[in-house]
């Protein structure tokens, strides 16, 4: 009888010990006042903020650092104008195109496919349907339009302005145009880049950038 009681005690003790481990709760800390920040943490929950939410959108009439203005509005008219007027503000270089290719794999290829044929994994798994190929006859895929759609989204596609910066959007645009060319069997974007790059370098602001870049090289 005594041994039975002993075994019982052992079982209860180990059960309580095991049940103390709860993976739904964080562990104890030695000195919480050294672990917990005094200032407001990113994504923190503090009473002084609206909705107690540290993460907020910028206040009205302010611009974030490095913001670049985009003059075309989110409408059919804006898209048509962007298609006609907008061109690359950055030179088409191997560096830019390969950076664009990397970003494309992250943000676009899930739907549009690695080759731009509209057969990404989400399309083949039928999560998204009706994704057109960049070489689709009924659509005019031009740099200005590609950039505009990344900023605002179009139809079922959402805006990617929050995830990729202005320069990155242009890099992706370069890669998209490259994919379109290869789908159509035309020469790639780097081979036809010279004419476009000449027109870009004639822009005053880009000249400045080119000068500073060459200075850095000398140093």
């Amino acid at each position, binding site marked *: 009888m005594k041994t039975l009681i002993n075994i019982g005690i052992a079982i209860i003790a180990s059960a309580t010990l095991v049940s103390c481990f709860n993976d739904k*709760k964080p*562990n104890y800390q030695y000195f919480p006042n050294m672990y917990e920040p005094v200032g407001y943490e*990113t994504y923190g929950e503090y009473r002084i903020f609206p*909705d107690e939410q540290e993460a907020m959108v910028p206040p009205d009439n302010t611009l974030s650092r490095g913001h670049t203005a985009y003059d075309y509005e989110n409408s059919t008219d804006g898209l048509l104008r962007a298609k006609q007027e907008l061109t690359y503000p950055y030179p088409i270089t191997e560096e830019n195109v390969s950076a664009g290719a990397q970003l494309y794999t992250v943000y676009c290829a899930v739907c549009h496919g690695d080759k731009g044929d509209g057969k990404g994994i989400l399309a083949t*798994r039928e999560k*998204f349907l009706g*994704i057109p190929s960049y070489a689709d006859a009924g659509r005019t895929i031009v740099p200005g339009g590609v950039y505009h759609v990344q900023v605002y989204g179009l*139809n079922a596609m959402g805006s990617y302005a929050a995830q990729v910066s202005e320069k990155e959007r242009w890099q992706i645009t370069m890669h998209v145009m490259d994919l379109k060319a290869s789908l159509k069997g035309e020469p790639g974007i780097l081979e036809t880049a010279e004419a476009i790059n000449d027109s870009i370098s004639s822009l005053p602001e880009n000249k400045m950038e080119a000068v500073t870049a060459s200075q850095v090289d000398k140093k």
Partner: protein
Amino acid sequence: MHIPVTNKKLYNQQMKKVNFIHLRSKLPLLLLVFLLTFSTTIYSQDAAADNAAAGGDVAAGEALFKANCAACHKLDKKAVGPALRGVGDKFDRDWLHKWIRNSQALIASGDAQAIKLFEENNKAIMTAFPALSDADIDDILAYVDQPKAEPAPAAAGAAPADGTAASGGGSVSNTLVIGALALIFLLLVIMLYLVTNTLKRIAEANGVVYEEKEKGTPIWKAFVQNQFLVLVFTVFLLLAAAYFGFGYMMQVGVDQGYAPVQPIHYSHKIHAGDNQIDCNFCHSSARKSKHSGIPSLNVCMNCHKNISEVAPETATEEYSKEFYDGEIQKLYKAVGWDAENQEYTGKTEPVKWVRIHNLPDFVYFNHSQHVTVAGIACQTCHGEIQEMEVVEQFAPLTMGWCINCHRETNVNLATNEYYAKIHEELSKKYGVEKLTIAEMGGLECGKCHY
């Protein structure tokens, strides 16, 4: 002898009677089941007949619909464009051909119906499909105009329900088996106890006398008397206490395995695993910021505007389709999305995600340095996230763990010309070909503590 026979006869008659009564009451039900089983085929035959009249092939139409239209149109739900079921009956066929091939041209030509439709749908421009032939469009319309297959979803709904019931039964039976085994074991123990008791009683009744064991010194007294044993035992006890005490102290503040319940059950397994969405797609700031970033809800909505429910095959034994659909509804509520009218209501509420990976305030850690500069896969520190239905902390995130990696990992020097000279000098100093992070000063206190 007679009586049982008549009884048997009577019994048989009764049986028959009873049988018939049951059959009669069941007959309508059977008929209903019969009808339901065949009603789908009847429907599809009807549809096929209709289509033959209109000259459309449903299967070809479905493929065309999925390739061209489904980006913006759903059959029974408003998406970017209006729901399309039954559209062939609403409009004239020739007019539809023109509209689908180039709606803008039709609007420009001043067609009153086209202009009305355009304005009703917020002047959203439908892409032109000049490549579609009349036959193609008829195929699509044949697919779109199929009556909604009511019994089919019911049957489809019933089948998974049965499936889950069966599988649920499987898990239930497992616990049942274990429970039954435990019960049998318990019964055996009780029986054994009772048997010994009765045997004892019988033995006593028969006058068998047990030899009582002679009581020597109790074991604990013997133990106390042996001083050497006490010493050894005490030393052992102290060592053991130190060992376990140290182990316990060392895990204070370490949250390895921490897997809290999140306000919205977001499955990394479905998103990053099954659908192979890159981590950076949602955690886009990991590339260029200290924080990997909790995606704001507009990133969720980039896809979930379109995906309002999960596919039936996404459901698992543990989490049903209804559960997952409910979680998507939670997202809609938080972001203020009215799925019916496809517009934002403006009523938002914050989602209180529970942070899992959290370094103490006195440590500086930068994601971009590790993700973009070093090119380390997220899985190195976060584990096989793409397989986690519920995310848990994989690494201990202790200082020792950081330092270890900094000691062992070689830095990629190949494409870093800017630092070529200093890299060369450092290699010479340490007499190694490849430099680890530690050798480049990655262990200096100020790198992470300030």
